[in-house]
């Protein structure tokens, strides 16, 4: 249900603007990745809490069930989740968590004015001071570490890099 004055087309338009980086450059890609990773990681967190909550009786947690119940719930969950699709999904979550964390630190630094250039007279063909080389290096560092997290998760779950 939409709020008064908000049309379906305006919501779709807003989502398109938010999710499509277009030709605005690296900082816009960072914005899109940060938003998408934030939403996905939040949804994963909720699913994770619900899933692990089953071991202790779900919403009836305050009357703790016996150990055999938790053991059975754990075995069933492991059986359900132990397949390549969930493993690949977890690897993507690993990528997004690392990216959101490290890129988030970069953004906090920028919000406090650190790692940005100083105001200077505009010069033709030179990037604005806010697109400083430090900022861009930090962004690529966050991408690199996120890719490392992806590969590490894949290796931990599916042993893809082991003989």
């Amino acid at each position, binding site marked *: 249900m939409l709020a008064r004055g908000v049309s379906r087309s305006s919501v779709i338009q807003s989502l398109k603007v938010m999710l499509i980086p277009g030709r605005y450059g690296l900082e816009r890609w960072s914005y899109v990745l940060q938003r998408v990773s934030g939403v996905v990681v939040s949804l994963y967190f909720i699913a994770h809490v619900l899933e692990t909550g089953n071991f202790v009786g779900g919403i009836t947690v305050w009357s703790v069930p016996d150990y055999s119940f938790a053991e059975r719930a754990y075995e069933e969950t492991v059986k359900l989740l132990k397949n390549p699709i969930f493993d690949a999904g977890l690897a993507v979550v690993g990528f997004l968590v690392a990216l959101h964390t490290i890129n988030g630190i970069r953004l906090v630094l920028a919000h406090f*004015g650190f790692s940005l250039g100083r105001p200077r007279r505009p010069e033709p063909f030179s990037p604005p001071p806010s697109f400083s080389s430090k900022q861009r290096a930090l962004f690529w560092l966050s991408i690199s570490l996120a890719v490392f997290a992806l590969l590490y998760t894949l290796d931990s779950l599916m042993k893809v890099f082991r003989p």
Partner: protein
Amino acid sequence: MVEKVKFKVFRYRPEDGGKGFYKEYEVPVKKGMTILDGLIYIKENIDPTLSVRYSCRMAICGSCGVRVNSLETLACHTQVLELKRRVIRVEPMRNYPLVKDLVTDMTPLFRKQKALMTWLIRQDNVEQENPTKQYLQSEEELERYLQFTYCIQCGLCYSACPVVSTFPDFYGPQPLMKAYRYYADSRDEGGEERVRLVDRFEGVWRCHFAGSCSAVCPKGVDPALAIQLLRRSALKG
């Protein structure tokens, strides 16, 4: 040498009430011709009902802001052949109410500028009425805000901002940049009042540093930097 380029122009008539549509025009183009020249050619030779706003034709007045191939730019500042495309899509700016075709209503931008008191605030009213002295500034004091004075209020940054698209109450890059321009001016005495105005949810805290505002500015102004510096000032209190 004259080439034929297809202009795919967004058309919208308020009296029709519809969503608007794209209409294609074939325009002969030669070296040095701008998007605005192409639009004027269409208006004069093919379709006089096309509405486009322009004035100086030399990137000074900031009237002819449009989106060309999905990127905000001044129509008079963009050469057709430099785009290296056979089809050029021209659309009105985003985040503004549409008046007709490529003409948008800039009222939201100017209303927000006014709300942030983007003018020099002085306490010495008597001196202002009967000036007796000059207000000297060092080179360093000038550099602090000079780059932000190059803004021509074309509103391209406001159109490119993804936060304004999703949260229209956000003040937007240009009004906040303008607020910083006066905040950083050594002659201004509105410091605390300015910070109070921007230190709110729809102010500096809503900026997500997508940087699109600075990427599209035709004058090389950096609103993203101004907003971060303003946010730092708000944090310091």
